[in-house]
């Protein structure tokens, strides 16, 4: 990118045309090299864990983790799955994540709609209330929350502990309450961009408030809802703190926090831990790979307005 580049031959068509666009071969090579090195460094720990996971325990015990492969096997994945009851913990994650995501999106779109489309006098204050709540560190609210959870009884069809504490229902509630802020913020920004004329037209047609919300606003917000659903799924699935503080070390925990227990259980067989970790990572990776574009759009949805 120095003056030397002026004398370099034009190698590739520059992205931006025009007289100011100089061929920047050296810059491009340097960028490529930097990105390749960074990408390799970034993927290395994951690949290494994967490598540990596909090698038999006897091999790594004999030669160490960092050694040539003698055998490769999927047995660790099978063993991790069967010996640690991972199916059960996965099911817990599903039971928490799916309802939580659906409820957050439903509630948040309602709030955002009211704040943006109905002239509630205090709407900015309410928006700030919701948004700020999501930015608090979780540890700031955990003390009373833990106490509240120990105090609130639940009927037995909701929780066999009979309490909010140590119940899947309680974990859904806390995730919903905490994530509401972010979704209200994003959705209200999105809804504000829907032209007011559409609502005028709906009003003329005699649509009530509920119709304007459910039949008009929610369908128009589908892209934002899809992006948020992706984000929320990964966040709630990956939650660790609520699960370890609001659940006693029991079999109700979701898979991410259950892994911490597995670590103790398999302490002598690191290959099994690696395999279990890889299995636990699969859902978010699948979500990411399938919805990558939407996911990134979702992030920009939340941030571009900020």
């Amino acid at each position: 990118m120095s003056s030397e580049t002026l004398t370099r031959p034009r190698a590739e068509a520059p992205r931006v045309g025009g007289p100011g666009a100089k061929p920047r071969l050296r810059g491009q090579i340097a960028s490529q090299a930097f990105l390749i090195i960074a990408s390799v460094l970034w993927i290395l720990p994951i690949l290494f864990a994967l490598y540990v996971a596909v090698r038999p325990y006897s091999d790594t015990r004999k030669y160490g983790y960092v050694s040539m492969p003698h055998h490769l096997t999927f047995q660790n994945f099978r063993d991790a799955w069967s010996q640690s009851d991972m199916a059960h913990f996965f099911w817990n994650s599903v039971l928490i994540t799916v309802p939580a995501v659906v409820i957050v999106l439903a509630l948040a779109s309602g709030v955002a709609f009211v704040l943006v489309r109905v002239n509630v006098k205090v709407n900015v204050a309410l928006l700030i209330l919701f948004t700020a709540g999501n930015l608090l560190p979780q540890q700031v609210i955990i003390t009373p929350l833990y106490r509240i959870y120990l105090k609130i009884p639940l009927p037995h069809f909701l929780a066999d502990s009979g309490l909010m504490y140590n119940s899947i229902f309680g974990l859904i509630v806390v995730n919903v309450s905490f994530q509401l802020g972010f979704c209200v913020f994003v959705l209200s920004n999105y809804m504000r961009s829907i032209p007011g004329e559409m609502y005028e037209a709906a009003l003329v047609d005699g649509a009530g408030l509920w119709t304007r919300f459910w039949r008009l606003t929610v369908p128009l917000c589908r892209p934002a809802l899809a992006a948020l659903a992706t984000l929320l799924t990964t966040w709630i699935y990956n939650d660790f703190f609520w699960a370890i503080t609001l659940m006693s070390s029991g079999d109700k925990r979701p898979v991410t926090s259950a892994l911490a227990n597995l670590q103790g259980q398999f302490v002598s067989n690191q290959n099994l831990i690696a395999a279990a970790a890889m299995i636990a990572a699969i859902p978010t990776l699948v979500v990411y790979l399938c919805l990558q574009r939407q996911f990134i759009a979702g992030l920009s949805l939340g941030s571009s307005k900020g």
Partner: protein
Amino acid sequence: MSATSQGRTPAAVSDKPEDSTSPARRRRRRLRTMTVRDRIVVAVLLGIPLLLDLAFVWFPAIGTVLLSFTKWNGVGSLHEKTCQPNMPSILNNGCWYGVQNYHQAATIYPEFWPAVRHNLLWLAVFVVIATPLGMLFAVLLDRGLRGTRVYQSLLFLPVMLSLALIGIIWEFVYSQNYGLINTVIGRNGNSNAIDWLGNPHLNLWAVLLEATWRQAGYVMILYLAGLKAVDPTLREAAMMDGANPWQTFWRVIFPVMKPINIVIMVVTVIESLRAFDLVYITNKGINGLELLSVLVTSNIVGETQRVGFGSALGVVLLVISLVPITIFLYQAFRREDTP
């Protein structure tokens, strides 16, 4: 707030085109005359989430502040009596303690200042290393080089993994006897092995490397989203005026990215204050890895149960985090303050 934002809200105008003329007022009046059914809908749509947010976020937040002035072990009831000095804890339980918890934290609690230092160090590493690195990734990716999508996917991959999982994955890299690093540098014998995660002088740096590994990808994606929103004609105009890429970025692109820069700043501070999962999964957050978040947790959940004291630590965390939260809210909502 509104006075400062009056003059500079061109974006708000385009957001609300209906604000400019009288039909808007007419429409608003019509909205105000809601039917009973509409009122019920508003009450339900707003009421339930508001109740949840107040009950499970804001009430606990206020509760933490109140509890921080008490001495309580979590058993028995709270009362209004002031704590008696020199009385056994059991008899004093649940009393009003004033600022004693804060005083104790700052003076005699051995883990407090190390935890504050570690939090500051965490923040410093995020500000000095992770954020610029993420921005660099984003700027390079934004240039549309070959393979951009692959690089982007790989660099962003860690953000999709839970921090707990990241802790587990990196243990194979750091493991004392068989880990990747020690083997590569030839220190995997039992005598000269480096205990990356156990040595209190090293482990914070080791964990910070894991945190940076993830945070850089996070910053990258936020910044990339911001860069995509920059008007391309700005860049072309700068090029036309003879600016080189370096000048174009710092004089043109970076200033117009102010909103995203603030978001990243806020995310950086909040993520460094929230840090918990990595150190907890690595060694429960002790032995050189103390953080404020860990101290709060260990005081209120588990065996010790010093609820008042743990709450005081939580309030310290709250006060620090209110700074970036306020900045973010000011930035995000000043436009909407105009009538």
